[in-house]
């Protein structure tokens, strides 16, 4: 009896499996429904809500959201000098962090991918990734200690007659560079590791010295990966508002403006939040031209 039930059950499963096998579209549909729902409703949906609410206004006495279509927020965004300053500053910080990350990551990745002995390479990559496993807040507070008055930075620079940068914009750039560096090292490391050795041989064979080979062969082939890494460093920096609160002194970035508006003026917060989204879309379009998106 039980045996029969089992075979019957198995038969149903088999028939179902067979039916699915003959209908590849149905199979694909069942497989993708849940993730597609997640993407469409939760992710794109919330973006849409954000964008729509950016056109609403707030009752200035009660702070209640008034769902009336208006472009006042955008008008305010474009005409208030402070907003413009903060936006430019935020983009500047994101660009500076990306540039610093690239400058530091390239030699580092060159070492881990091509100079270090092959058996040490995986270990070195793990070492570079290890900070990603530590809490973000712990790392930022560590930097707060390093940069504090009489802290590690001051102590190390003292013999040269210098002092640390203290809290402020430079400290923010420095800390963000530290935070996002692994996201830049990893793609460059991969690109350098995959660079065929015989291309370097061929370049030398055709008469090129080391520097020429680097400029004409290595750099152009690795540049898309630098751009890919910068997509991470740029967007992560642009969205950050905690680091700047901890080590930035009085410095304000877009994230801080969004954060401070959420309670009192949600539509204005939404308007401000569309700025980084728009900037990142523009950045992605620019990076696409370098071939970065295909080397992600």
């Amino acid at each position, binding site marked *: 009896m039980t045996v029969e039930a089992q075979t019957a059950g198995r038969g149903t499963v088999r028939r179902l499996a067979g039916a699915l096998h003959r209908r590849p579209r149905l199979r694909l549909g069942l497989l993708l429904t849940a993730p597609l729902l997640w993407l469409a409703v939760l992710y794109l949906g919330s973006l849409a809500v954000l964008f729509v609410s950016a056109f609403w206004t707030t009752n200035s006495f009660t702070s209640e959201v008034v769902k009336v279509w208006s472009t006042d927020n955008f008008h305010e965004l474009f005409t208030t000098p402070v907003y413009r300053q903060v936006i430019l500053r935020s983009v500047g910080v994101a660009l500076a962090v990306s540039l610093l990350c690239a400058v530091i990551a390239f030699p580092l990745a060159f070492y881990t991918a091509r100079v270090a002995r092959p058996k040490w390479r995986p270990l070195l990559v793990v070492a570079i990734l290890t900070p990603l496993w530590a809490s973000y807040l712990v790392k930022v507070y560590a930097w707060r200690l390093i940069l504090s008055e009489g802290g590690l930075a001051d102590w190390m620079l003292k013999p040269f007659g210098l002092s640390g940068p203290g809290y402020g914009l430079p400290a923010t750039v420095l800390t963000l560079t530290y935070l996002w560096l692994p996201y830049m090292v990893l793609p460059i490391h991969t690109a350098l590791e995959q660079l065929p050795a*015989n*291309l370097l*041989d*061929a370049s030398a*064979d*055709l008469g090129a*010295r080391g520097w*020429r080979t680097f400029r004409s062969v290595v750099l152009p082939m690795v540049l898309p990966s630098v751009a890919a890494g910068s997509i991470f460093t740029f967007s992560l920096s642009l969205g950050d508002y905690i680091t700047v609160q901890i080590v930035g002194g009085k410095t304000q970035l877009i994230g801080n403006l969004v954060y401070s508006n959420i309670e009192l003026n949600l539509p204005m917060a939404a308007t401000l939040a569309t700025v980084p989204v728009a900037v990142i879309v523009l950045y992605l379009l620019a990076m696409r031209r370098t071939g970065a998106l295909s080397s992600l």
Partner: protein
Amino acid sequence: MEGSAIRLHDLRKSFGETTAVAGIDLEIRDGEFFSLLGPSGSGKTTVLRMIAGFETPTGGRIELAGQDVTGLAPFERDVHTVFQDYALFPHMTVEQNVAYALKVRKVPKAERLVRARKALAEVRLDGYGKRRPGQLSGGQRQRVALARALVGRPRVLLLDEPLGALDLKLREQMQVELKALQREVGITFVFVTHDQEEALTMSDRIAVFDQGRLEQVGTPAEIYERPVTSFVASFVGTSNLLVGEAAQRVVGTHGTFSVRPEKIRIAEESAEELTDADGPEHTTAVGTVAEVVYLGDSTRFLVDLDAGGRLTALQQNLETSAEDVAAYRGTRVRLRWQRRHTVHVPD
């Protein structure tokens, strides 16, 4: 063909415990099409890479046109290489790839372009200059690699199994073109291959390698007709060796002897025509056909000799069909060849 393009003196290379090249002395003449032939792991590619400068010899000396280049970097040597997998720069156009050697030498842009186009025309790729290597077929990439290496007119061109990745038809076509190109430009070609047929058809001279040593250097005819070691006899052409007792009974003396399969004629054991022919000039041996391999234009007979050992005889299918030759399997036959085709292999 005066002067020497390359001279190797007791050239050695070891990778840790393994010896890749164990002392090579070799002279390659100016304007020669010279092949380094051997099985994989015989050291031929390592020798090529040492001539190019990619590997530093463990011992010995390399001379290019009389100048000692042993310690020089690749970019200090007047040789260019065609790599096995072409090694084209994927981020450059075909034209930029070809012009690379000129750009490095700071040749003005206009002249660079003219010479790159001319080099592309030489390999019959006119009009492909603006494409990327990724958009070309294997054979076309091969030609680009050739043009790129030739554009700077090096003294020596090194080719590392350049036809290995091509299919048979294309390979045969490229063999002819490569040989013609070499005659046209007059540059010394050093060609690494494991394909003995390729080496025989293209080369002026061949060096046969085994286990990091030189086995024999000579013209294709010398290598094929007069192999000096049993390795050469079996690696180049079909292995057909008579050794020990079999040699004693068939040839009349002890030692190792080689007979090429196409020199051997096959007939029924009782065939008058063969046994009666001018006796002392010929060697005969009787045996049983063990296997018949029909090859289309010819047939290969594997014959177990009564004297011991096995010989392969190759016959053109001038009048015989597949069914005719298949009937030979298991029959008694008499093999006959001219005495001068029995080659004594010294070792």
